[in-house]
């Protein structure tokens, strides 16, 4: 964890030709990678947009993996005494399902959007630390692969995603699954922490002139809050994971009850991280739909400052509620009361957001393209999940609900109906900007409706199942406890399992839509501003050039782009379009910036990240290998430190052919 960026390695000043160092000689190992259009470019890239796309692709693959795990779970539960999985496999399945979805899908997918769009939204040319950005991505990818490699090396972790001690100790979980889990999360944690520092600095420091904090797009705001949550939450889980690793690998006693340990230590540490984590999962999606709803309502976000501040408030209060996951753990009534109250309090700022979204639509001119459908989907589905959350906050009721399917219903409504719907809104909204083609609206609508219906069929019945007493994490349920009549557990479990397949058809349609759009070239080429949007990322090409903007615009308004296109008569309040998007861009780009200097590609991020799983495997299998990994870390960090962030102009090899991917070295004109 602490081997992330050291200041000593951050020594170059862009533009200042470093004294005495020829970057191409750095360490004498690698010649600095040059621009190219082959896959190699993706390996060494530090471009925030390429990294964003890679984050997105990798996260989506993990989504499918987590989804297939979920489908296996649902298959097992479709009937009593299921035979699809045995107990051991089932326990691994839900543990890895949750871990994959939370840490390898939603978080990195949000990071994908943040990476790609935050610099664009604030009018920057890249993030503050591009190489660290690349390093973060590779840490996520290698951490995720490392974690999933456990499937082939004796089985995945089997302790549930919150991995309560002492069930996670070697005595009770002897396979290496938990070791892969702790180390894998440790590695992806590095990605989150470095990403947090990077994005916060980017947002605070790299805004276009005139882009005050209160003129930032709300997505950027929510990313800012999220990254602060990550900045402070990740170290907490890091401590917990270290303690568990020390316990498992070096016989420390932290969770060894025989030596007097208190298992609640783990629970506290996990949930002090874990609750901020759930807001880490949802806030980016809140941000996305706060972009989408105004665009498709043709109105600014209602109460922009209130929405921004309520996001911050959620982030803040979110630190004081963790023990609501422990109402049955045996805290005293005083603690329970305090945490019950604070949990209820958090519904207030969240409610503010819901209200503001509705008020944004209120009085608008609503069109229902797919992004808007998903956004409305989020508002409705999340509200259901949020309200069941409030019923958990009532601690005595929660002692009836906790660890039943009612909880499973709650968190899938907020996670799937909330976070995932928001991400899908983002896919459809930003796709044309990222890939230059419009996804099919009609397939998109099928995609949406199948997902809504599927998710309500899958997770809706879980409310009933849970309240009727079906506990979670049961590899089988039994007829004996299923109740009688038509609407017994059997019925609802069947509906739920069928629903999950409808849901996956919906998701499959998204994949089909991508093929349809790109492989079959059926998708229309996207204009720069297909949705008549309001924020800066639409004020550039689709897809944007490597340097994002030919000219960094001067910002005078919230929703700058909209204000350049439209004018509102101050007396009649009638709004008229005065410029088309293309006109705005033509005007802006009349005098492009000169000497745009972009950060240079580097081998070091991927190499440094690659050494971390080596340490991981080493810790599990062979301490010699661990030493190799540590040596790799030191070497690559040294190489990194010796390499200036931006190579001086003469260092560039001209690309062999074409010029689309060439460095923007020459004046534009």
């Amino acid at each position, binding site marked *: 964890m602490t081997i992330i960026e050291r200041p000593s390695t951050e020594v170059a000043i862009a533009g200042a030709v470093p004294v005495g160092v020829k970057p191409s000689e750095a360490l004498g190992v690698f010649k600095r990678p040059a621009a190219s259009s082959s896959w190699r470019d993706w390996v060494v890239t530090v471009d925030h947009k390429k990294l964003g796309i890679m984050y997105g692709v990798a996260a989506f693959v993990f989504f499918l993996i987590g989804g297939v795990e979920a489908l296996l779970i649902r298959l097992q539960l479709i009937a009593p005494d299921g035979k699809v999985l045995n*107990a*051991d496999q089932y*326990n691994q399945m839900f543990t890895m399902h949750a871990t994959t979805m939370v840490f390898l899908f939603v978080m990195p997918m949000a990071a994908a959007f943040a990476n790609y769009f935050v610099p664009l939204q604030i009018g920057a040319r890249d993030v503050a630390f591009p190489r660290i950005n690349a390093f973060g991505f590779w840490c996520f990818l290698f951490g995720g692969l490392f974690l999933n490699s456990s499937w082939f090396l004796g089985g995945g972790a089997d302790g549930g995603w919150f991995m309560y001690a002492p*069930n996670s100790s070697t005595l*009770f*979980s002897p396979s290496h699954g938990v070791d892969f889990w702790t180390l894998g999360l440790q590695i992806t944690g590095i990605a989150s922490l470095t990403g947090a520092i990077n994005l916060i600095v980017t947002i605070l420091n790299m805004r276009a002139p005139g882009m005050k904090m209160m003129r930032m797009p709300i997505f950027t705001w929510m990313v800012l809050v999220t990254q602060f949550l990550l900045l402070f939450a990740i170290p907490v889980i890091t401590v917990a994971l270290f303690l568990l690793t020390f316990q498992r690998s070096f016989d420390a006693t932290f969770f060894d*009850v025989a030596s007097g340990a*208190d*298992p*609640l230590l783990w629970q506290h540490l996990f949930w002090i991280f874990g609750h901020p984590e759930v807001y880490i999962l949802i806030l980016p999606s809140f941000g996305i739909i706060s972009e989408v709803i105004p665009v498709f*309502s043709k*109105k600014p*976000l209602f109460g922009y400052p*209130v929405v921004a501040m309520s996001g911050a408030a959620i982030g803040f209060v979110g630190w004081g509620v963790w023990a609501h996951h422990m109402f*049955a753990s*045996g805290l005293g009534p005083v603690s329970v*009361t305090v945490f*019950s*109250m604070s949990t*209820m309090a958090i519904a*207030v700022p969240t409610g*503010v957001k819901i*209200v*503001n979204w*509705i008020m944004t639509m209120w*009085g608008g001119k*609503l*069109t*229902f*393209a797919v992004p808007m459908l998903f956004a*409305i989907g989020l508002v*409705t589905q999340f509200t*259901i999940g949020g309200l069941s959350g*409030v*019923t958990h906050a009532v*601690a*005595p*009721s*929660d002692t*009836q609900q906790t660890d039943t399917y009612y909880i499973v219903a709650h968190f899938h409504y907020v996670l799937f109906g909330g976070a995932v719907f928001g991400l899908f809104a983002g896919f459809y909204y930003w796709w044309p900007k990222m890939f230059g083609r*419009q996804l099919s*609206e009609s397939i998109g609508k099928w995609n949406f409706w199948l997902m809504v219906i599927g998710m309500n069929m899958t997770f809706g*019945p879980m409310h*009933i199942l849970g309240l*009727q*007493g079906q*506990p979670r994490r*049961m*590899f*089988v349920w039994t007829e004996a*406890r299923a*109740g*009688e009549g038509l*609407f017994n557990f059997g019925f*609802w479990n069947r509906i739920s399992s069928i629903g999950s397949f409808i849901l996956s058809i919906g998701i499959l349609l998204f994949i089909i839509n991508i093929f349809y759009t790109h492989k079959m070239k059926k998708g*229309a080429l996207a*204009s720069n501003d297909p949705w008549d949007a309001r924020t800066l990322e639409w004020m550039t090409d689709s897809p944007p050039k490597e340097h994002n903007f030919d000219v960094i615009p001067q910002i005078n308004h919230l929703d700058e782009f909209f204000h350049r296109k*439209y004018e*509102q008569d101050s007396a009649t309040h009638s*709004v008229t379009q005065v410029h088309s998007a293309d006109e705005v861009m033509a005007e802006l780009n009349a005098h492009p910036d000169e000497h745009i200097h972009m950060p240079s590609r580097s081998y070091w991020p991927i190499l440094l990240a690659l050494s971390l799983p080596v340490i991981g495997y080493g810790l599990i299998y062979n301490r010699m290998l661990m030493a190799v990994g540590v040596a790799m870390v030191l070497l690559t960090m040294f190489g990194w430190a010796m390499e200036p962030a931006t190579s001086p102009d003469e260092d560039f090899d001209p690309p062999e052919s074409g010029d689309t991917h060439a460095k923007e070295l020459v004046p534009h004109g």
Partner: protein
Amino acid sequence: MSTVGTMKDRVAEPMKIMRRGRAALKTSLAVSALAFLASCARDAPQDTWQPAGPNAEQIDNLQRPVFYVAGVVGVIVFVAIGWAIWRYRDRGQAIPEQTHGKPVVEIVLTVIPALILLGVAIPTAGTIFKLAKTSDTEMTINVTGQQWWWEYDYPAVGSNEEQYGITAPIVTSGQLVIPENTKVLLRVTSRDVIHSYWIPKLNGKKDSVPGRVHLLRLEGAKPGIYAGQCTEFCGLSHSYMRMEAVVLSRADYDAWVANQLEAYTSPAAGTLAAEGEGVFIQQCSRCHQVNGLLNADGTPIISAPDQYIVSGVAPNLTNLMTRNTFAGASWDLLTPECREDVWKSDSVTFGAKYLKGVTTDCLNQKDLREWLRNAPLKKPMYANPENLAATGGKYRGMPALGLTEDQINSIVAYLLERK
């Protein structure tokens, strides 16, 4: 050009959406009506909305209004969204005024939820403290979870001894037996990992954490059998870690206590059961305690399960046949018909039927024999050799003992007399 195409699409779209929207609304109404019907119907044994004792009732009294409030808030939100979608869909109206919000609206719509929540918070706090009270309880039972069954230990102290005649500790498993209308205090703990004790109809759950003792009130208003389930993930057979609370009238309870305390009698010599006693001493008594069982030299046999099992205990089988489920209450000791008879009886007749225990005719031979033949095959347990390395040769659960069918016959006969 794409934008144009999608624009046209969009103009045509709202109607379609609305039609679909309305259809969706209808179905969702229908579904929620169904859901409501179903959730308040049919007796699922672990239904959290059918309290059968004052503690659970307190929770119920609290949660019902909360659910209604949540439902109303939900409906308001849905109606507002639906109305906005319908009323403000693009019908060619002018671009609306670019307002940035009205502070009054913001404040009102923030204060209202805050007030609602305050209204919820106050009774919540009250209930938390009421349920945490322990000073007024009338009897105490120690409950210990381990992989994957519950042990109950009725200590012979204080009011237990004076009022309930528990003159020697009673140790049993799976089914908790308590007198009706008695404020029982459970002292819940664990011998290995975290479990959670939960009888939904009698009270909410409480984790059983190794190294800690948690207190849980339990009280049944009328005789009957109440199902429960371990609700903290505790490893392989978490699903098969169930339990029941049996509430008996005071008279029946006294009978039960007396029976539990009855001295051991060996089976008559020459019977199959006597043969079974021999096998049991050989094979089983190293883990399972049967109080009163004697060695050849006349000393009592004390099982030493801690040498063989991680958690250090196996169920006490002295009165196995007074309970009617076994192995973490996951299988019945009664045949389906006999089970029906006991479980479905009304509160008046229940006690007598329960106290009969398991008779020869009613014994569920199938599941018990399967258990004796190969327990880990029936209930996943870490009892196979590969898993023993991590635990220093100790099992988590009961291993397969490789008994012959003859041995099993005799053991079943022997166990049948354990009541």
